[in-house]
């Protein structure tokens, strides 16, 4: 039931993207998101898509696995797209196609809807490339390393990274646990599939209570285990895997710098997203 949550699931493979420094990948992902929001016309988005396709191709993750990550937020995308279609107000009365009650559909709202949906798609797909090619441990190592400057203002960077890696580490465990409890309650005739929203929410109680109890039990055990190994925070700790910035990372950053420059150039050259209307209307 929950095994098909791809978001944040590492896809083991040996590839160019897999062997990049997690820090570089995180920086690239952030810059990629910036590029998505910088782009204000379809040509810019096309450039971002091209970059994404290259990244996926060099990650050796099957395109299907990447696309599956959209499934989770498909509802959000459709919802925002529909809202935009109905309620985006057009500045030009001539472009209005349908007007009924509070709903207005215009050429602008259609374009806006497509543009927004594409942005969200690219956003989710791009970030899932990061999580598909980087193990959770590498990811938190990268974040910890990137946040190191914050240590100067006494921000508990190491503790934060630890909390994150523990949380990430326990997601699969808790999913397994959930599946087991769901099975056990199903065996006792629990029904999770039918009924209205309230009935279904109520049906989750026999799953959530034992899950919470077991999460607390695991937290206590983990705390004891860490104490038993004399864990005392970041002071004096060394790393098993040292992060190194290599030639792959340099290529990645160069490509992305190119992308952002390209997007800015396309923005200036082609104008806003509605400029396309001038060709058709």
């Amino acid at each position, binding site marked *: 039931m929950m095994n098909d949550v791809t978001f944040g699931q590492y896809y083991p493979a040996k590839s160019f993207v897999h062997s990049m420094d997690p820090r570089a990948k995180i920086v690239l992902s952030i810059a990629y998101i910036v590029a998505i929001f910088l782009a204000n016309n379809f040509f810019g988005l096309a450039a971002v898509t091209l970059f994404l396709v290259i990244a996926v191709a060099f990650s050796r993750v099957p395109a299907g696995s990447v696309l599956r990550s959209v499934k989770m937020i498909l509802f959000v995308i459709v919802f925002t797209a529909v809202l935009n279609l109905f309620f985006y107000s057009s500045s030009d009365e001539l472009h209005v196609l349908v007007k009924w009650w509070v709903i207005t559909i215009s050429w602008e709202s259609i374009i806006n809807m497509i543009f927004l949906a594409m942005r969200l798609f690219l956003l989710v797909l791009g970030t899932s490339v990061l999580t598909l090619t980087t193990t959770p441990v590498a990811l938190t190592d990268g974040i910890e390393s990137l946040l190191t400057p914050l240590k100067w203002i006494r921000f508990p960077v190491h503790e934060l990274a630890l909390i994150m890696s523990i949380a990430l580490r326990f997601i699969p465990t808790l999913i397994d646990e959930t599946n*087991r409890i769901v*099975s*056990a*309650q199903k*065996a006792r*005739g629990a*029904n999770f599939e039918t009924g209205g929203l309230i009935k279904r929410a109520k049906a989750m109680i026999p799953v959530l209570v034992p899950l919470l109890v077991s999460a607390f039990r695991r937290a206590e055990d983990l705390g004891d285990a860490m104490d038993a190994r004399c864990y005392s925070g970041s002071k004096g700790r060394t790393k098993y895997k040292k992060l190194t910035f290599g030639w792959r990372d340099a290529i990645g950053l160069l490509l992305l710098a190119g992308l952002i420059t390209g997007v800015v150039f396309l923005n200036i050259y082609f104008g806003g997203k509605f400029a396309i209307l001038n060709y058709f209307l």
Partner: protein
Amino acid sequence: MRIVAKGLKYVYNPKSPFASTALDGVDIEIKEGEFFGIIGHTGSGKSTFVQHLNALLKVSEGYLKIGEYDLAEKKCNFLELRSKVGMVFQYPEYQLFAETVEKDVAFGLKNFRKELNEEETRAAVKEALETVGLDWNAVKDASPFELSGGQKRRVAIAGVIVTKPEILILDEPAAGLDPLGKKELMELLHSIHGGWCKTIVIVSHDMDEIAENCTRAAVFSAGKVVMEGKPSEIFSRADELLSLGLDIPVTAKCARILQSRGIKIGTDFTCDDFVKQVLALRGKGGERDDE
């Protein structure tokens, strides 16, 4: 109800790099009235198999029929099947959730038999709790989280047998219990076996448990049934079991030691029978062959 499986296959996470074959063509038949044991390594597919019996995992390839229920059929009434095939998971106490023991035990009953009124439900819950050896007045209003480990497990088992399933499946029911708890649990299973509960299937790592209690058993290895028969037949093939990395009962170990000294002993590997056979050797078989 008879359980028949033919060529049952199951793959976890198919078509992904995490794909793993759990069942690779399981053929097995469990007749009504048996106390059936399933033995196997961690990862041999035994838990996957028993989850099929309760339709918690859908048949993806092969044939599985329990009584009249064809589990490979999409239209099969799974809710009705689950009320007749009870399933006790490993560490069942981790599934307790309600505020009181009574409510927790009643959960399954209310799901399966909605027609029951308050008194009938309460009577059934009381009977189930008494069957597992708990004092109704002492525990009914207690929170299941206040109880001791052994009591929690009894409550969890009561929550399954409250519907009086014809077939009861238990995955490692004695795991984590002390020796006395194990003994009491097995006595409990024998006390319900043959009554409304016609067939019992237990999954176990404990070979003594299988030797003592089961009428028949099957050995799983790498998703297949590699041995099937009476415990006495299975444990007389001790070498094969050991080569599969499995344990053998203490009685079988003793029999092997005796055999290595040249003393042959015919036993069904239960403690009582073993002692009887050893005592019978007194005076005659006691001497070694080489003397």
